[in-house]
């Protein structure tokens, strides 16, 4: 019987485990949000009880991209057991979403009587996420379900995001 060295295996893992843990924190934005930002809906303001009914853990909320503000956008991401939910608010319109060459597979859908479009991104060849964009006064709200990469998905992410969008709809701006 061959017995491989425990030390070698341990060092191998730790090297990767500690490889870049400085990037896992949540850096704070270094300056005030860009102008025009404040007028947009803040998805992180969605109440915890509504979030819980979508299956996400409200305590996992991450604002913007690791806490860094993105000009012209507000977004919030939460963890569900095998997926993530991100809600984007933007002043780009539903027409812009449809005209964006990075998006494809458009399907017109109705979310609680609101005009919306479901689509994939061109780069997402494995269908590891699915988006629904709703038409709102200030632009668009995009609801996105993303797989936790490598974890088998029990359900199509477009079905997940459809259900999530319907649950969140009463909280979204008109």
């Amino acid at each position: 019987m061959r017995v491989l060295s425990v030390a070698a295996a341990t060092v191998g893992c730790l090297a990767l485990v500690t490889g870049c843990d400085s990037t896992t924190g949540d850096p704070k934005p270094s300056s005030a949000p860009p102008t025009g930002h404040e007028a947009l809906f803040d998805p992180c303001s969605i109440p915890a009880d509504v979030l819980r009914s979508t299956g996400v853990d409200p305590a996992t909320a991450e604002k913007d991209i690791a806490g860094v503000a993105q000009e012209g956008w507000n977004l919030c991401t939460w963890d569900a057991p095998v997926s993530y939910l991100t809600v984007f608010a933007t002043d780009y319109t539903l027409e812009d979403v449809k005209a964006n060459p990075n998006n494809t597979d458009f399907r017109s859908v109705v979310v609680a009587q609101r005009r919306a479009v479901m689509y994939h991104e061109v780069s997402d060849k494995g269908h590891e996420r699915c988006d629904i964009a709703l038409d709102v006064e200030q632009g668009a709200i995009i609801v996105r379900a993303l797989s936790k990469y490598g974890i088998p998905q029990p359900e199509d992410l477009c079905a997940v995001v459809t259900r999530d969008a319907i649950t969140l709809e009463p909280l979204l701006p008109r």
Partner: protein
Amino acid sequence: MGMDGQIDTWSHLATEAAAGRLKLDADIARDLDMACDKRLADLRKMLTRAVNLQSISGFGDLPSGNALERKFRAKAAGDEMSLDAVLKQHIQVVTDMQTVFRSTLAGYQETDTSTADTFGTIQP
């Protein structure tokens, strides 16, 4: 060792562990299993950030497109050497590591069970 080498090494070790030819102290294996869980959660979160950032910046060049911005965007997600492709490779390697650690733990459990069975058959 490059990422391809890491993938080969850990896939090989997973085979060895499944065959019972790789032994690891059970406490160490459990600690490493938990470290892998934490690492996978962090890597998946980073991947989601990269993907969401790419989507946002993808609107910046409407309607005509800008070659430089496309090039930077490809660094976040979408092509072979992009951040999302690299993060996916890291997730694969850590998943393989975890398979190795869990296989050695499963080996201990089997040994415990068969030892218990042996004792169970010894009657006074």
